């Protein structure tokens, strides 16, 4: 989404909420853990967008910008996420506001392994992205695999 589209969507959402007034009950408000988690995913996507745009050839390769986006991504992936994955924030408990499946907490070892795969793939990307388009393209595959591997098992 472009910045403009995001702004428009944000304003639209804000006006809907405002016009609904205070009658909008507590349950419409997202759980802060879910909100933080989805914000983190958006930050991943924002940085991936630049790298992927370059890999696809839609954005001209720029070593410095690619390196910055990739190190952002690696830093985001490596943050401590203990609280962001708090128990009781799955879609069975909270409903449609989240797509996080209860299986995350049932298979916590496997979930941790998939998380490690993302940390590693994003670190590899951080090393590669500034060094040329071929390296960036090569690192994109493992990154996509890490995202997909976890989404397949643990996202609705």
């Amino acid at each position, binding site marked *: *989404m472009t910045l403009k589209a995001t702004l428009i969507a944000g304003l639209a959402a804000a006006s809907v909420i405002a016009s609904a007034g205070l009658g909008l009950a507590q349950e419409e408000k997202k759980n802060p853990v879910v909100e933080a988690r989805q914000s983190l*995913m958006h930050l*991943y*996507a*924002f940085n*991936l*967008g630049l790298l*992927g745009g370059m*890999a*696809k*050839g*839609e954005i001209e390769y720029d070593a410095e910008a690619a390196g910055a986006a990739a190190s952002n991504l690696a830093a985001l992936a490596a943050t401590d996420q203990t609280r962001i994955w708090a128990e009781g924030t799955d879609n069975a408990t909270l409903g449609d506001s989240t797509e996080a499946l209860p299986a995350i907490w049932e298979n916590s070892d496997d979930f941790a392994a998939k998380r490690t795969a993302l940390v590693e793939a994003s670190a590899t990307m951080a090393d590669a992205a500034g060094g040329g388009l071929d390296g960036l393209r090569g690192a*994109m*595959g493992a*990154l*996509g*695999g890490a*995202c*997909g*591997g976890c*989404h*397949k*098992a643990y*996202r*609705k």
Partner: protein
Amino acid sequence: MRRLLRILFFLIVVGAGAFWVLSRPETLPADAMAGLTADPGHCETVFWAGGCASCHAAPGAQGDDRLVLAGGYRIESPFGTFVAPNISPSEAGIGNWSAEDLANALIRGVSPGGEHYYPALPYTTYAHMTLQDVADLKAFMDTLPASDTANQPHELSFPFTVRRGLGLWKRLYLTEDWVVPAQTPEIERGRYLVEALGHCAECHTPRNQFGGLDKTRWLQGAPNPSGKGQIPGIAPGKLDWTAEDIAYYLESGFTPDFDSAGGEMADVVSNMAHLTPEDRAAIATYIKAVPEAK
């Protein structure tokens, strides 16, 4: 009264006879595969494009484990639950099959024992495969690891337990016709990858009450047969991605918004990532050439 009973009896016999003839499993000519030798450079492409591992690898398998075709994946449908069998080259799998056996399974939906397969095996798609591709696929599957995992029975209720009835179903829905006209060689290649191998339509096209695909709404999205949620439409008018977006999604799993594929599509992407960039581009070009959804 006696006369009426006699007529009724006569009609039942004729009806049963007609059912018997019309529902007979039909196989390919015995020499269909004669003289075909596998092309080693092409074998793996058929396997990944056909998406065999999506159902026949053990559920949850990742990476090289997806080459162990032990079966066990459960396909939920309004007719019951189908459990994918072991198709690894072993006793428990299909180690003793000939290339003809594989061709009959994929192209005619008939087992080596002469029974109909359920169309959970997407033979209405594979019926469009070339026999050369079957030969290539067989050669590749013979090189894969063996698994001795025993097959589990499907969980179906009457009348779907009567396989013979599938003979009639096949008369309605098993056809070698193509759905989308191929105006260019690239679309034709894409069409082969989608309509003969990739079986995208099996999920992305809605079905009628008998489980046949509604080809007038080709790739326009459908309720999930498991009963949970909706499978998105990918025909023009339903999906506004560019051909490049589609090809890149199939390669990396990333959508144009850099969300990433989940669910069944994560498996599809791990299959499609094995294809050449030209083949992924051909699929994307084909998708853009599908008749627009109203």
